[in-house]
């Protein structure tokens, strides 16, 4: 693909958008720099042009104009993504949805909220709180990330174990296609006619269209929530305790694990009252009706003790419950304080493989000489190893990336996946070649072409080209075989 854009073409390009007000256009380089990267700051690129439209018609006009000029488009929500999905292009438009920040309608009877894509995740729950309702998916970044970005990444959160991911909690989206057409996918009923395009678009990382409106499902707030903190002297025991809770037929609202390094970092940062001598802690939230919670708290406490917990605490007040969670929710920035840089991985594995995978990560950590803090969604096997490194030390970032790649391949080898919620983006593009074979990748490209035949929406992300896999494959021999033997090596 050849892109037409050159710096000098900028005026010509903008002349094709006569109805876009000046304050929606960012062309100065100092201002464009704010859009250089998303939450994965190790990857940076100056966008050619940043546009911040205010209306759906403007989005349609921009996309149509990009289509006819052959200019690629990268959508951006709040830029908190952790896989470089919103990384801009030197020759493309960065389309920010930041100005689409209005809640359009709250339908209490049908428990739906219709919002613009730039609305922050937490703002939805805040707006519907007065009706006794909330929006369940709660990524740790929920004060900042946008609902459009959540849909594009199929974001998860602490409460997804019981209440599902973004895909389970949205009802309808409005999508602007690369032709500038406005489509409604899904609906306000529980299903829609035709293919489940709502599911397909969820997690499509801005490669299939621009989301300009989202209708989310709301849930009644549980009558009561209670959180238990359990300490263990051994990570493996904590892992086994997770399995025993689920096997007992209890689905906690959240079930999170933190290891020694993250406990320490979080404790130093927010003073959550975590036991500093523990090798691992589990945080288990139980919610539901009042009697059900009492019953489950009792059962879970017993299970934790019989799994070898050295200490089991139940939050005595709502304030203490919030404090227990505060340490977990602040874990990433807390780790950020103890290391110049950290690199967050996102593999998901079958729960039973937890002990084995945690052990191997520890071994790799020693081998690479890079510490790892583990803080993750234990209940659904979604790991977030944080590799601590210093980007200013020559070669350390490269070593970190290689270590990260090994972790992802480890996840695949135990029957898991390279990404549970952060997306492939730019970051995990090579590991996609390990997870999927050539025919599967080709099917992905064919689906992409059904939406965007010219490949102008977020090119280079999420799905690797076969050529890229051939290049990657020349370094990584998988299962004794080179992937894509028929493609020429670079």
């Amino acid at each position, binding site marked *: 693909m050849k892109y037409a854009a050159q710096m000098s073409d900028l005026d010509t390009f903008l002349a094709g958008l006569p109805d876009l007000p000046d304050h929606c256009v960012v062309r100065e380089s100092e201002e464009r720099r704010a859009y250089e990267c998303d939450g994965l700051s190790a990857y940076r690129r100056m966008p050619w042009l940043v546009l911040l439209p205010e209306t759906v018609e403007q989005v349609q006009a921009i996309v149509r104009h990009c289509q006819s000029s052959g200019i690629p488009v990268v959508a951006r929500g709040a830029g908190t993504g952790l896989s470089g999905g919103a990384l801009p292009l030197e020759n493309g438009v960065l389309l920010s949805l930041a100005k689409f920040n209005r809640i359009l309608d709250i*339908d*209490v009877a*049908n*428990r*739906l909220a219709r919002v613009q894509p730039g609305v922050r995740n937490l703002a939805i729950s805040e707006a519907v709180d007065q009706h*006794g*309702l909330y929006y369940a998916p709660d990524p740790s970044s929920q004060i900042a990330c946008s609902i459009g970005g959540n849909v594009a990444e*199929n974001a998860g959160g602490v409460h*997804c174990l019981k209440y*599902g*991911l973004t*895909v389970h909690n949205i009802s309808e989206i409005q999508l602007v*296609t690369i032709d500038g*057409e406005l489509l409604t996918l899904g*609906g306000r*009923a*529980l*299903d*829609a*006619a*035709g293919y*489940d*395009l709502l599911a397909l678009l969820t*997690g*499509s990382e801005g490669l299939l269209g621009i989301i300009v409106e989202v209708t989310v499902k709301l849930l*009644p707030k549980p009558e009561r929530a209670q959180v238990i903190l359990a300490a263990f002297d051994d990570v493996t025991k904590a892992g086994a305790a997770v*399995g*025993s809770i*689920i*096997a007992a*037929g*209890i689905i906690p609202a959240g079930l999170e694990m933190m290891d020694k390094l993250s406990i320490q970092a979080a404790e130093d940062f927010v003073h959550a009252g975590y036991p500093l001598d523990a090798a691992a802690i589990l945080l288990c939230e139980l919610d539901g*009706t009042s*009697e059900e919670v*009492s019953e*489950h708290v009792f059962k879970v406490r017993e299970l934790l003790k019989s799994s070898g917990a050295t200490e089991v605490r139940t939050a005595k007040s709502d304030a203490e419950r919030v404090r227990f969670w505060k340490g977990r929710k602040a874990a990433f920035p807390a780790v950020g304080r103890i290391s110049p840089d950290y690199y967050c991985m996102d593999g*998901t*594995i*079958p729960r*039973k493989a937890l002990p084995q995978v945690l052990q191997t990560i520890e071994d790799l950590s020693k081998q690479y000489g890079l510490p790892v803090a583990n803080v993750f969604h234990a209940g*659904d096997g*979604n790991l977030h190893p944080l590799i601590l490194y210093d980007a200013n030390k020559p070669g350390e970032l490269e070593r970190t990336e290689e270590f990260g790649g090994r972790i992802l391949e480890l996840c695949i080898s135990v*029957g*898991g*996946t390279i990404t*549970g*919620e952060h*997306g*492939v983006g730019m970051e*995990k593009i090579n590991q*996609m070649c390990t*997870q999927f074979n050539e*025919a*599967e990748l080709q*099917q*992905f490209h064919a*689906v992409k*072409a*059904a939406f965007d035949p010219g490949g102008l929406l977020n090119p280079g992300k999420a*799905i690797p080209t076969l050529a890229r896999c051939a290049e990657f494959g020349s370094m990584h021999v998988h299962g004794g075989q080179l992937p894509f033997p028929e493609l020429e090596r670079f």
Partner: protein
Amino acid sequence: MSDADLTESLRAHVEQAFIERTPLNIHGARSRAFYGHATDAADLDISAHQGVINYEPSELVLQARAGTRLVDIEQLLEDNRQMLGFEPLRFSSDSTLGGAIASGLSGPRRPFAGAVRDAVLGAGVINGKGEALRFGGQVMKNVAGYDLSRLMAGALGTLGVLTDISMKVVPRPESEYTLRQSASQQQALERFAGWMGRPLPLSGACWHDGHLYLRLAGSEASVRQAQQALGDAKLREQPDFWLSLREHSHAFFTRSMPLWRLSVPPATPPLALDGDWLIEWGGAQRWLHSDATAERIRGIAAEVGGHATLFRGADDNCEAFHPLPAPLLALHQRLKKSFDPAGILNPGRMYRDL
């Protein structure tokens, strides 16, 4: 339950059909043959492709071949105090898993425990070129690549032959209780809307012929608590009431008149259409026996933000599924082509132009 992996022969069959441009009619037990349009094509029978590939109760995941009978899967789950959260509609004891996923028809629990597509974690799929592909996986969270396994749910086999499906399963509730109250349709819809906005342990909400039926499910304590809050009026006469909805064996479903399924926002007031109604999903799924024209029924469903399916009784004169706006239909056609370039997989089963 037998254990036979026929993936390779099914794949070879599709590949041959692709080369020869022979349309295929994919089927299992044919228990859903009435759903959608008949296709004039050579049969591809998947019912012998059977067996549970992987099931570990503590992982809450089950993977089985598409020809496996639903009753066998549900029995295995029941033996482990688990179940399929979406309670698939099951039209005969031979109904297969593949048919349940491809038709995407969920049972009474749908509004409370999610739909078929919500439970799908991964799938083996043979596309229209005869390539055996694998999407998704066996873990709860997976965003690598487009979500093509969920897309298969409800696609009626028009995008690929499902070979196996990995699903999330859920613990069986400790306790269940159905209460019955007399209510007009309008009263029932209002009560449902009120209850569904409260944190109650619900797992079914139906209205028919002057009565509403509400199923409570969860821990013993929570069911007891809810029962006290809602008033005691236990349904004793019809122990298989919910099963009769799942299997469409309830007397309502045995009429000969055309059967419509209207899917609308749940709190929508009663619709101005004459006929016999059975309301499910707390108002979100409404069954109607009516002789009204398709245009009228579809017009009314669309007006309230829903759609209408001619569930039984579709013929050449009427599309079974609600017609799509032209740009959306065009996108469906391109998507279909991306999986099935020769148009050999269940052509016309869903929409005549697809």
